[in-house]
């Protein structure tokens, strides 16, 4: 009888524990967001750390994100090609590729790539500092780890992903134009003349706003999981894994909500 009761309670117990865990992490991330905001006045941000992070997160991510954007544009054309050929809708191929890339696919894929490269690296770095007592060493030296480590990284991640999205949008157009010319014999004049008049600035802005929101998600999750790492080297691995999954989930939730609001 008692076994049956404990067995019946096991599932709600586990669900409850999982929900409490998620609530605890969400609360922790919210508190950290408040701490970041409190220390984000321009004159409080460590300029050296900010520039260093902008360089290594931005400049070093540019090649891989540029490739992602270029191929995203090209893939949009490849996907549309059978229908374009069947219905002889060559004048729509540019618009469809750019519209979907600007508003959805471009920022989403770039955010996921950025999360895998920069977000994971950020968590691993902060996690390693946590398990080797470097965060405690900063505090012992009267240096606030949030102000010194987290704020420059969080601001850099948000700015870099937004900028990379803008650059990526144009590279995606180049990729789409190249593929349209190669597969469908649509020259770049026809490609642009048939698409640009149908596009609005808002289509471009939606993608940039989304990239900004995705940047916030990646910044908060990667920093939170990095700072709360414990348990030595295996703990760093677990933290990176949790950070990448949580940030990707956050990106999809932000995407869903922002699409719902802005469309």
């Amino acid at each position, binding site marked *: 009888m008692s076994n049956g009761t404990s067995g019946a309670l096991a599932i709600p117990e586990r669900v409850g524990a999982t929900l409490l865990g998620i609530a605890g992490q969400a609360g922790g991330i919210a508190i950290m967001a408040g701490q970041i905001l409190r220390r984000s006045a321009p004159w409080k941000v460590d300029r050296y750390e900010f520039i260093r992070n902008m360089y290594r997160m931005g400049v070093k991510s540019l090649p891989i994100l540029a490739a992602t954007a270029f191929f995203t544009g090209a893939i949009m054309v490849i996907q549309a090609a059978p229908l374009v050929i069947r219905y002889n809708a060559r004048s729509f191929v540019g618009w469809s590729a750019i519209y979907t890339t600007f508003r959805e696919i471009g920022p989403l894929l770039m955010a996921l790539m950025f999360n895998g490269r920069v977000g994971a690296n950020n968590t691993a770095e902060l996690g390693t500092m946590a398990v*080797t*007592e*470097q965060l*405690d*060493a900063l*505090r*012992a*030296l*009267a*240096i*606030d780890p949030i102000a*010194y480590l987290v704020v420059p990284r969080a601001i850099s991640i948000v700015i870099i992903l937004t900028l990379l999205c803008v650059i990526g949008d144009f590279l995606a157009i180049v990729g789409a134009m190249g593929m349209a010319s190669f597969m469908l014999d649509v020259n770049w004049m026809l490609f642009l003349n048939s698409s640009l008049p149908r596009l609005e600035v808002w289509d471009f802005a939606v993608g940039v706003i989304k990239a900004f929101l995705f940047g916030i998600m990646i910044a908060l999750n990667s920093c939170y999981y990095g700072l709360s790492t414990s348990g030595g080297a295996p703990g760093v691995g677990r933290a990176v894994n949790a950070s990448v999954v949580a940030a990707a989930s956050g990106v999809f939730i932000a995407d869903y909500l922002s699409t719902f609001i802005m469309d």
Partner: protein
Amino acid sequence: MIKVHDIHLSFKKPVLRGVSLEVPHECIYAVIGPGAAGKSVLLKTIAGLLTPDTGQVWIDGEEVTFHDELKLAELRKKIGYLFQNYALFDKSVGDNIAFPLRRLFGNIGEDEIKERVAERLMRMSLPGFEDRNPNSLSGGQKKRIGVARATIMRAPYILYDEPTAGLDPVTSQRICNLIRDEAREQRSTVIVVSSDIQRLLSIADRVGMMLHGQLIFDGTVDEAFASANPYVHQFIRGETEGPL
């Protein structure tokens, strides 16, 4: 003076249970005890890196406990800290040692910082190591870099966590002598946590023994050796027979 009053701290189970002690000015205080006795946790609590559940810590008459990070930052300028695992940053040796000066004392010029770093390295018998990467150094060298960073601010309070752990006897004795000489020259108040009893007691003025989160002995080194407490007696002599 460092004063600790009735500190309790738990991480799921109790780690510190009613610890009280006083460390007078210019005293080298050794905290000894077996593993998992709560020694390092006590040291971190004194530095304000951990907040106790109850109890108070005062340094120079200022309460450390229950302040927020920004207030504690001011107090921590008075404290140097050597971590058990060095906790050196991913910077050159020179930048590691100069880090507190550059971050906390904006009025010190770069020339003076370089001079003080060179002096610290000379003192640690590591001259010319400024541009080396800490990852390329041995454990003993990393410890000495840690000591150099902990002492460069000339803070009146220095806390050392296991300064000789994992080092050979000669390097261990050198580091202990360095801790003693630094404390005497700078007239600083020092707490050293270590399991390396013989070497530690050779430089300490007073000694406290921790066991299961409690301070079971507090006295001079001579009193420790004469103690009738069976735990202290066994631990100090390293005997295998006894209550430990």
